[in-house]
């Protein structure tokens, strides 16, 4: 659905995205993870034709975003971090205005989008009176008009309360199931991405350091927790024995936790606990960041 090939972008000589290649399959819920300034928003900007890459190509549904904008963005809905609307117009008028830039939509289509996000009671009020959560729901309704195949969401849950985040997640998952949407979701809320996304790409300083189904890769996770007396000394000992990775508390290739336990006990350390770390997206993400320090980024 989305293909970015070797895209690069600098702002005033400062690289924001380096040689980025990304493929998002149709029907995926794809999380774009990274710290502030990692290049997530620049990537979404390039996908929407709002940021011109210095080199590389960006296409949606097989259509180049810059050469064939009409077809590439014809079935795309987008939401940005701060939901901006014409505050002096009603929610309904805003939906009509924004969707008109794609095509003419019927009142029934607008009503269906409003019902889907649960905003019917306030839709004829001015947007200036809406709460942040309501604005975000309006943003989602806007993105659903007229009939997208792809949603691009840039930090959509920022500023929402926990209830709002949960509602947003449920709505998004329901949309994915019912409308078979492909969703690209940029966020730094790891828990949200873990609960929502099927695939992730991790970015660090403009470079992609991981791309794919994180759950599959997480089974290779070799991090562990260790409770031992003289902790720092124990780690140094394990490193000299080449039993753990140089920068992380992770087993070296071909070593398992039983070997490490036996080695420590044999060397006179008192091991109180040793166990693999639970495989969450957070541990996976942190691991990717640490690995990025050990090896050149892909």
């Amino acid at each position: 659905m989305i293909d970015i090939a070797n895209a690069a972008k600098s702002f005033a000589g400062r690289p924001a995205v380096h040689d980025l290649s990304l493929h998002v399959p149709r029907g995926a819920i794809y999380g774009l993870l990274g710290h502030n300034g990692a290049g997530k928003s620049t990537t979404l900007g390039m996908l929407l034709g709002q940021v011109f890459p210095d080199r590389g190509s960006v296409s949606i549904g097989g259509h180049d975003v810059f050469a064939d904008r009409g077809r590439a963005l014809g079935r795309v809905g987008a939401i940005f971090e701060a939901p901006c609307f014409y505050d002096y117009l009603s929610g309904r008028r805003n939906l009509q205005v924004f969707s008109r830039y794609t095509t003419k939509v019927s009142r029934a289509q607008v009503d269906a989008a409003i019902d889907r996000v649960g905003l019917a009671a306030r839709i004829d009020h001015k947007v200036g009176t809406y709460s942040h959560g309501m604005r975000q729901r309006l943003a989602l309704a806007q993105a659903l008009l007229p009939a997208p195949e792809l949603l691009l969401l840039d930090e959509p849950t920022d500023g929402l309360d926990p209830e709002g985040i949960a509602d947003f997640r449920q709505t998004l998952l329901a949309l994915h199931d019912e409308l078979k949407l492909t969703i690209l979701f940029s966020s730094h809320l790891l828990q949200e991405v873990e609960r929502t996304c099927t695939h992730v790409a991790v970015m660090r300083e403009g470079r992609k350091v991981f791309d794919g189904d994180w759950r599959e890769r997480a089974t290779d996770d070799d991090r562990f927790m260790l409770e031992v007396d003289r902790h720092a000394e124990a780690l140094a000992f394990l490193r000299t024995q080449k039993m753990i990775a140089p920068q992380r508390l992770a087993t070296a290739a071909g070593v398992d936790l039983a070997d490490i336990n036996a080695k420590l006990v044999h060397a006179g350390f008192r091991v109180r606990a040793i166990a693999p770390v639970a495989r969450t997206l957070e541990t996976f993400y942190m691991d990717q960041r640490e690995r990025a320090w050990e090896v050149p980024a892909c």
Partner: protein
Amino acid sequence: MLIWELYKLYARRRTYIGFGAFVLLQAAILAMLQHPRAKGEIGKLLNANGLDFGDHYGGLTLAIVVIAFSFTFLGGLYVALVAGDIVAKEYEEGTLRLVLARPVSRVRLLLVKFAACVIYSVSLVLFLGVTALLFASVYRGGLGKLFIFIPEENLFAFYDTGEGLFRYVRGVCALAAATITITSLAFMFSCFKMKPAAATILTLSLLFIDVVMMNLPYFRSLRPWFASYHMGSWVRTFHTYPPWPAIAESALVLVGLSATFVTIGIAHFAQRDLK
């Protein structure tokens, strides 16, 4: 798209500031013209030229006085305010990014926005023309005959009501067309990465510099090089025998300037990264 652009424009309260300000200013000018001294000055001028005060101090004459004063002071300001906002304000508020997430081309979007600004500018001048004539006619109890005297333009003319009304309508239409140049200049600045207020202030500053320099006695022979000279050509349509070749030349200069401003603005915006 143009209809929705106009809907957005006219749904904003600040769009009406210009209309409201003109009504207030017109009322103030007409109230000032009630003063015996003001009446006396105009009466003296009419009598000195053998014209009857009662016939010529009517709605048409006063409407021209009102337009000349009110548009000089406020017209450029309100046109620049709206055209300076049209792109820069939407960029600042973030709605432009959401619009440009849609499959609309930047050039088309900007052309629609410019068209909306032109419609606003023309509607503002026409509003001024209609209300000035309406208020002045009510104030003087009728249209009367048209008398116009502008020494800087060597313009001294008087017309019967029918001819005066025709000249008045034509002059207001010419003023509306000339105003599009100010719209284009403000629109161009609005397309650059700057605050909406900066686009308005830059436009007014350039306009002000142009007017001041044109009026310096040392530059008298260079007047046709200033944009405001050509923008003032609406007044020349009131000559008994209007200098049509000069008016046409001014119109061409203004069209050329407007096209250049709009092209620069759109070309710059089309290449801008929006973040």
